[in-house]
């Protein structure tokens, strides 16, 4: 089927100026320009966004969920990175 030849793109939408682009899904397309138009047609039919990014899925390098334990482990035993770790008396606790 011809469709298999089309590349996969990931779609990110900024719902409002000032907010981050957020991943909303993916689609198949011939190229970037077409991906943008498809994304507009399928993901923003109800004014969901003011800006769209499309990125080739193959260009995304992702960490492996299976490996999450090892990957994030170095940060798990550092409770002192959290503000709540410091028990301050009520009088000055608003910092």
């Amino acid at each position, binding site marked *: 089927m011809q469709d298999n030849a089309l590349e996969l793109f990931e779609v990110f939408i900024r719902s409002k100026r000032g907010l981050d682009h957020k991943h909303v899904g993916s689609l198949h397309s011939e190229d970037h320009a077409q991906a943008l138009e498809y994304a507009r047609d399928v993901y923003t039919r109800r004014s969901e966004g003011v800006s769209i990014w499309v990125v080739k899925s193959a260009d995304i390098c992702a960490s492996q969920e299976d490996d999450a334990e090892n990957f994030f482990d170095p940060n798990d035993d550092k409770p002192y990175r959290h*503000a709540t770790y410091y028990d301050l008396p009520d009088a000055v606790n608003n910092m």
Partner: protein
Amino acid sequence: MSSEQNISLQEQQFMHKIKAEEKIEPKDWMPEKYRKNLIRQISQHAHSEVIGMQPEGNFLTRAPSLRRKAILLSKIQDEAGHGLYLYSAAETLGITREEMIEALQSGQAKYASIFNYPALTWGDMGAIGWLVDGAAIVNQVSLQRTSYGPYSRGMIRICKEESFHQRQGYDIMLSLVNGTPAQKAMAQDSLNRFYWPALMMFGPHDSESAHSAKSMEWKIKRETNDDLRQKFIDQTASQIEFLGLEHPDKELKWNEERGHYDSGEIDWEEFHNVIAGNGHCNRQRLEHHIKAHEEGAWVREALAAYNAKKQANKAEAA
């Protein structure tokens, strides 16, 4: 339509967004001066995060316990991250990282002059976290509402991380004031040396501030230097009292009518002197930055070599 009219129409649309509290995003049209002003402010902020690691880094090997050492190390790591967030935000405005580093190292770009004061004792680690990060937080909370999207989002991320910085500093102060008389004296000394420079972090009085008016109109800045400074003075007064330390400002007095503290005048001569490069550590801070940058050159070269090798392998395989 002439290009002049064209630009003024763009400028009108730009101002319309600013007035409507909409954020300006990287690909939007913006006045050249807005872009320049932002590059100056964001890169200066980024440089401050990075140079700010030096006075604290200096104490890593002298922290009084493993726990304090781990905490300090974590805080310094955060500051490096803050530098990264901010450099990246500035890069969306069309300036490169190299250009910014070059401007810092040549002395053309500034960083917060607070970091030109030396850190002399462990008490200074307390005072810096509590007062210097505390003052930075007051400023950064306000900047979460800045008009440039990437800067605003960077500030939101940074503010989430800063609270721990201030609290660990105050926690150090608490331990010192509850310790021996010598330890309490150390806390007092650190407070005395860092209080006034922390007030200077908010910059000159509004009446003297060169960049303020336009920055406020464009909503790059949301509150004036003096208003932010007043906030900091107000919140710090009770924190000093709670520590049982003497307030360094002998003229500090609650003003019932204003609902704020009145305070003594900052030594502006000292302020201008440090900005002009005559602080205790100006030369040392830049020299250290340049040295670290040069000594890290082999890492950048190794990365480039590795990359070239991978490309070559790929080309061969193809």
